[in-house]
Each structure stands twice: as structure tokens, then as C-alpha cells.
């Protein structure tokens, strides 16, 4: 019997390496110009890995709005630097606040877009990649399971809010205090069902003999190809270019 597996194009280790390089750069650098370079590199790679950016933007619309609000608040409460906008001697926006806000947005975008690269691999392949990087099996396994739980969780929260509204509760009309109360109540079923799911998962894993055999084999064999080496080479060159010109 032969099993036909869809061959993954690019080694997951390469993807992990790229994501690590890009996010390290995002944290190291404090400069709008260089951060936008890093962002464009990151987006270049995500597009190269065939991530559908349009769907992503639609999905993360809420998150982007939240980031935007945080940035505005952050900028307003920053009182260093030259004043750009002020009302009755109360400083609303300074140049440093503005710059910090923009840097924050860029950094978030870089981290989100680079993380998307990982989402193009299936979790099994990613797990194999983590293992080959000498990360302990339990840890790598946990990371992969955790990643799988995120979309389920967001789906569940969405469902809960639909169920509440169909009960005839207009969330928008509630006072803030009631709103918070409602959120705390509704998170209950989500938390309970998540704990339930993880319990079932662990029971079923155990029933199938998790960790019974010390060495684990995998149906996926990872091997570097020429394409992988080229990718690693290019990300190293790009990162060092940015690092050298930034710290010059």
C-alpha cells in the first residue's frame, strides 16, 4: 500500500528561521524607516509563500481596529517632545508620541505578517520542523496543539455572541457595566467547553499510547533542497544588510 502525501514545498525549518529573523529585527530596531524596510521584506515573504492577504485583512479587521485605538491612546498620553496638537494647554499629540505610535503599528504588522508564514505549513509538518531543531517533543507538540486551538476558540466566541443576541439581548444598548457583566458570563461556556475539549484530547492521546515509544518516527521526511538554501541565504543577507546599515 502506498500513501500519497502532498509534498510541502519549503522546509518548515526554513520558515521558522525566517520568522525568527524578521521578528527579532522588529524588536531590535527603533526607527520608522528601517521598520518599514523590515515590513516590506516580511510582506514579500508572506506573498511569496502564497498567503492570501485579502482574507487575512478581512479576518483581522477587529484586531487592526484595536491596535489603532491603542496607538491613539499611547500617542495622546505621551508628553515628551514638541507639541503638535494641543487644546487649552493640554497636550494632545507630540511628535515623539506620533513616532512611537507609528513604530508600534509597524512592529505589530511585521509580527502578524511574519507569523502568517508559519500558517502555510500544516501542524504536523511544523511539529516535525520544531523537533528537528532539537526542541523537546512534548513542548513542540504543545505549541502545535495550542496553535490549532486558536481558530476554534475565536469561532466559539463568535457563536456565543450570536446565541446571546438571538435571545433578544441588544448588546449595543446595554450600559457599560452590564456589558462587562455579560462578557464575563458568556466567557463561561467558552472556557468550559475549551477545558472539556482539552480533557477529551488528552484522554484520547493517552489512549493511543502517547510517549509509549521513546523514539518517534514520522511519515514526513524533512530534507533541505536547493530552494531552502537559497531562501535561508537571502534572509541572512537581507537581515544583515538591515542590521549593518542600522547600527552603522
Amino acid at each position, binding site marked *: 500500500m502506498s500513501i500519497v502525501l502532498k509534498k510541502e514545498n519549503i522546509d518548515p525549518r526554513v520558515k521558522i528561521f525566517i520568522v525568527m529573523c524578521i521578528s527579532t529585527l522588529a524588536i531590535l530596531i527603533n526607527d520608522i524607516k528601517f521598520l518599514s524596510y523590515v515590513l516590506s521584506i516580511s510582506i514579500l515573504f508572506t506573498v511569496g509563500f502564497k498567503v492570501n492577504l485579502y482574507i487575512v485583512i478581512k479576518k483581522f479587521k477587529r484586531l487592526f481596529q484595536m491596535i489603532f485605538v491603542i496607538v491613539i491612546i499611547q500617542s495622546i498620553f505621551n508628553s515628551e517632545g514638541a507639541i503638535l496638537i494641543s487644546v487649552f494647554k493640554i497636550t494632545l499629540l507630540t511628535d515623539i508620541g506620533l513616532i512611537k505610535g507609528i513604530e508600534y503599528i509597524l512592529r505589530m504588522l511585521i509580527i502578524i505578517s511574519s507569523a502568517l508564514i508559519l500558517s502555510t505549513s500544516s501542524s504536523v509538518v511544523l511539529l516535525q520542523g520544531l523537533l528537528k531543531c532539537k526542541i523537546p517533543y512534548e513542548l513542540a507538540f504543545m505549541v502545535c496543539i495550542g496553535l490549532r486551538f486558536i481558530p476554534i476558540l475565536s469561532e466559539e466566541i463568535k*457563536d*456565543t455572541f*450570536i*446565541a*446571546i*443576541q*438571538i*435571545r*433578544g*439581548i*441588544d*448588546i*449595543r444598548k*446595554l450600559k457599560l457595566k*452590564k456589558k462587562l457583566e*455579560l462578557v464575563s*458570563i*458568556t466567557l*463561561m*461556556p467558552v472556557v*468550559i*467547553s475549551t477545558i472539556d475539549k482539552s480533557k477529551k484530547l488528552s484522554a484520547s492521546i493517552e489512549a493511543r499510547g502517547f510517549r509509549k515509544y521513546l523514539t518517534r518516527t514520522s511519515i514526513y521526511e524533512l530534507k533541505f533542497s536547493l530552494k531552502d538554501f537559497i531562501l535561508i541565504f537571502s534572509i541572512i543577507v537581507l537581515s544583515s544588510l538591515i542590521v549593518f546599515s542600522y547600527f552603522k
Partner: protein
Amino acid sequence: MKKLVNDKFISISNLIFSYKKNNLFNNFNLSLDNNMFTSIIGENGSGKTTLTKLICGMITPNFGNVFIENRDVSKMNLSEVGNIIGYLFQNPEKQIFGESVIDELSFAMKFNGISIDIINGKVEHILEKFDLEEIKDQKCHLLSHGEKQRVALSTIFLKNPKYLILDEPTTGLDVLRKEMLYKLLNNIKNDGVGILMISHDLEFVDKLSDRIIMLENGRVIKDEYCS
């Protein structure tokens, strides 16, 4: 512009809907009366649950409209729909939020600012009607599936909805409780409340329905009125 006005309680016109890639409903038309017990049957994955969710506006169609009492659902708030239609989810766990059964029953009314006395009166009445008095102080997440279903159903009745949508209300009910549900639905039907029920229990469907619709791959393949 020609406006579609008819006396149907719910009407669905030229509806197109797909989850991601697989196209489920393609130019779907259906109308439902308020003074009728309608059942939807069909195999797993034929789109029954999806259809009812589209009716309530929980998911939006790619194209086409759904009207409830001649109002476009896409322009209505979900809570407005909820005040007209009572919806029982296929999985009752999705709609239970209270800690105990009593909490659960008073949950929506509390948030809508109804006074305690009225709430207590209504809850008492419902507890009796649904035979829930024994378990009224139980923790909801410890209830059995059938009990959860009964609690979920009873919360819907608190609002006296004009129309009911029930997604497989008989799954997990024992013989006795099914008989009770039958009597209850029959009474409601006689009170003039319209009901749309999804069910795989053909005997149950046969006993109650005025109209039976059969779905397959998002298409109506049978639509019969029973006498």
C-alpha cells in the same frame, strides 16, 4: 423599483450562499407561513441548519434576501429577530449561559431590565410547564444532554415568540420526554405560533407537520402539504 410584498411570514428569495468554497445554496427560494407547522428533513450536511441560520441573519447570504414579516433581515439587529423568533440550536450547550437552571431562565430578562417580581412569576410558570422543578438548582453544565435541551427550549418560551425554529429538538430525548414535547408543540401549534422544525425523526415529523420540506444538497427536492 418593484417591491416584493406578500403575506408570507418568512420569505427567502434568490438566495446564494457558500461556506468558503463549496456552494451550498444556489438561487434558493422558499416561503413559510406563520400558522403552520413546517418540518425540514434531509440527510446530514444537506444544509438544514445553515438554512435556519440564514433565516435568522446569523450568517449573511452572498446574494439574495430573507424577509421576516416583510422586513429585510440583513437590515435588522439580531436581537430584534430574536424577539420575533425563538431559536433552538442543534447543540443546546451553545445557548446556555447561566450557572444554575434558574439563573439560565432569568438570564435574558435580567439583562433587559425586567423587574424581579415579573421574572420570578414567569420562571415559576415555565418550571412547571417543562417539568424542571426537580433540577431547578442544578448546575447547568452538569445536566444531561436531554435536560440541557429542555432547559434551552424552556428559555425560548419565556419570550412568547411568534415563531419557533427548532433544530433537532428530539435528539437525546427519552420516550416520555418526547411524548411531552409532542404535546407541548401541539399546544403551541394550536395557539397559532408558527414552527419550523428540523428533525430526523420521521414518525415525530409525521405526527405534527402540516408541511414537510425535504432538502438535498441545498435544494428542495420535495415539498408536501399534509392534510
